[in-house]
């Protein structure tokens, strides 16, 4: 299938051109944050403190890697289940977060937030962490080092493979895909 080439930052102009089901190769910068890092970022926003990175037009990757072997840039680095971040996503979208990469369903509230902010939710392939590590060219821990695998990492990526799971119009592949292939039994 044909792939769309996408560079970061993910501006509104770039985001609105992406359609549900598109296969995309992302190059540029991603930031990782999982459950524990989200809790801290939400706390920072509440206390009006600076965040570990500028949210505007950025992409967060829900992922926590395995430790890299000596000499390797990256360990296994696939996506985690996104729905655990649902309750903590709206404040980040409202601060300009434009893209999220994870796997699995999102709540109706997050889908509304995606539409309102013209953001995009991408799915990476769950359980393909070894393959995904090939697209990671640099890793730097930039915040919450004490969280180990859950620390915020700045990733430099080249042709990072994702699928547009929810586009800026709120169209969701998990609904459209299932409906298309559902059969009577």
């Amino acid at each position, binding site marked *: *299938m044909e792939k769309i080439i996408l560079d970061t930052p993910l501006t509104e102009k770039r985001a609105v051109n992406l359609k549900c*089901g598109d*296969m995309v190769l992302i190059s540029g910068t991603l930031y990782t944050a999982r459950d*524990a890092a989200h809790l801290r970022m939400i706390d920072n926003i509440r206390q009006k403190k600076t965040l570990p990175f500028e949210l505007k037009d950025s992409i967060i990757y829900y*992922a*926590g*890697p*395995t*430790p*890299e*072997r000596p000499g*390797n840039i*990256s*360990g*296994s*680095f*696939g996506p*985690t*289940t996104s*729905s655990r971040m649902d309750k903590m996503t709206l404040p980040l979208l409202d601060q300009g977060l434009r893209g999220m990469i994870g*796997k*699995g*369903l999102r709540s109706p509230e997050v889908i509304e937030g995606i539409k309102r902010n013209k953001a995009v939710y991408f*799915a990476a*392939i*769950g*359980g*393909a*962490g*070894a*393959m995904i*590590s*090939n697209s990671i060219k640099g890793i730097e821990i930039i915040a919450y080092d004490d969280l*180990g*695998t859950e620390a915020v990492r700045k990733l430099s990526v080249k042709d990072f*493979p994702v*699928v547009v799971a929810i586009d800026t119009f709120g169209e969701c*592949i*998990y609904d*459209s*895909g*299932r*409906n*298309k*292939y*559902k*059969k*009577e*039994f």
Partner: protein
Amino acid sequence: MREVSTLLIKEKIKKMFIEMNHELGNDVEAFLNKTREIEESPIGREVLENLLDNLAIAKEKQIPICQDTGMAVVFLQIGQEVALTDMFIEEAVNQGVREAYQEGYLRKSVVKEPLERVNTKDNTPAVIHYEIVPGNRIKISAMAKGFGSENMGKIKMLNPSDGKEGIVKFVVDTVSDAGPNPCPPVIVGVGVGGTMEKAAILSKKALLRPLGERNPNQTYGEIEKDILGRINASGIGPQGFGGSCTAMAVHMEYYPTHIAGLPVAVNINCHVARHRESVI
């Protein structure tokens, strides 16, 4: 009595966890190879190709197949004519897990206590199930269980009158509600009967069976087939992007139960079905 050093068990456990995180059994790979030819959705086929590439890269470069290298679950069947020597058995298992996760560059995903959630930094403790069996051997069955799929499991105490239809509906609904979250194509483990905790343990044990092997009891074998057909008609597909391959297999195990009950537990495994068996 046959004496067996628990240090031997520790070494086996270590080797098993490092290996299983980098290489799956041939059964899953064969399934993916076969299914990529018959999956109806183009994006589904692409996903299955990627999963095969991923397995090849993991094996060749010794990078774990998935970054969630799991919580360690160990079933120990210990012959009653075995006398264990050296370390305490529980400590031996945990030491094996500790060395595997530290020396094998695997992710440490276990927290010490469920609310404060401080990481134990060595992926211990394992969840260990002991069983005393006849004979003088020890069978170790070990699995690295990821939580994307573990979180989608459910248990329900059905009424005896709910019968076969009730079981089928509960299992199919559980997998359908989980949708893309447990990383399909999945393996569905089902435990029926016993008590609440017995059903749950059976559903986990069912995941250890060679992929697609039917329950020898014809009634249960038929139910497995029926559930598999229904799940694959759901349209969820590989990774939930839509398609005809949602589950690779349904494995059921059963046990005698009480006149008033019909416990049913569903334990889902993602396509990265990591387990190993070893007999000492």
